[in-house]
């Protein structure tokens, strides 16, 4: 485990989180929402549990679909995290943190890219990252397996 820290652009939202080596496997989402929200693609690590924010972080929540919400800084609009709305009752929330926030990110690797059929054509596919289309992603979540907030290989 290693302790990582990060913050938004203006510094009003700061976090720390313990990460395992497996947590360093980042994912890119190219869906139309992520593309518009970030201006390119959203790069995340996680979902991670145990993310600790400063108590006065001005986090705004955007419910972007029936199954997802996004946290951003109310002062500078830096994207902070993506979170599933279908997490088990009573479980500690697991959130996917934006890679760009981390002070130390040199050892992150890109494991997979999703919604690749909606990618901004400008951004090339990463040579070694798993590539999944919208249909492939949706299929994985309609097979009866509830999202449990645990890191998975490719979703």
């Amino acid at each position, binding site marked *: 485990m290693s302790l990582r820290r990060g913050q938004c*652009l203006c510094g009003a939202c700061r976090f720390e989180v313990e990460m395992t080596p497996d947590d360093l496997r980042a994912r890119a989402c190219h869906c139309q929402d992520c593309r518009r*929200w970030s*201006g*390119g693609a959203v790069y995340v690590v996680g979902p991670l549990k145990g993310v600790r924010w400063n108590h006065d972080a001005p986090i705004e929540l955007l419910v972007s679909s029936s199954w997802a919400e996004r946290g951003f800084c*109310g002062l500078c*609009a830096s*994207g902070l995290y993506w979170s599933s709305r279908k997490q088990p009752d009573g479980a500690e929330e697991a959130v996917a943190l*934006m890679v760009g926030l981390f002070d130390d990110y040199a050892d992150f690797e890109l494991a997979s890219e999703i919604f690749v059929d909606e990618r901004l054509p400008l951004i090339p596919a990463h040579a070694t990252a798993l590539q999944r289309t919208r249909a492939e992603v949706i299929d994985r979540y309609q097979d009866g397996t509830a999202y449990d907030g645990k890191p998975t290989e490719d979703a």
Partner: protein
Amino acid sequence: MSDGRVTGGCLCGAVRFEGTLSDRGVGACYCKQCRQFASGAFHATRFAGGVGLTEARGLKWFESSAWGKRGFCCACGSSLFWSMADAAEGDWAVSAGALDGDPEQRFYEHIFWDRRPGYIDGADAAPKVAEAEIWAKYGRPSAAAKPGAASEDSA
């Protein structure tokens, strides 16, 4: 759109804009502030004649340094614009991912290249410009405008 006229906006629609794409293409910036603001990199494109706002109710600006500011939607947190602090209204860099449709743009340069996350491989032929070269060319700002915005690389 062959005449270069494009429209775009944020994820929720509280900011909408239109304009004519310049033929320069897209400049990607990997400075720390752009990584924080846009979750990975800021993909900046320019409009010839400036940005025309058609819906501005969500638009807010954050002064991210002594010389730059960033426009975003305060309702949904989408990262939209970068501007010199003293730029004329509409003379802004526009986030490529916020454009509607696919204008088929290409990179013309990557700046703060040495600050990029390790998984950005830059297979395209556009020039890659390091942080030191940027400061040598434009001069490094002496201080950030806002507490917390100062970082080892900031624009």
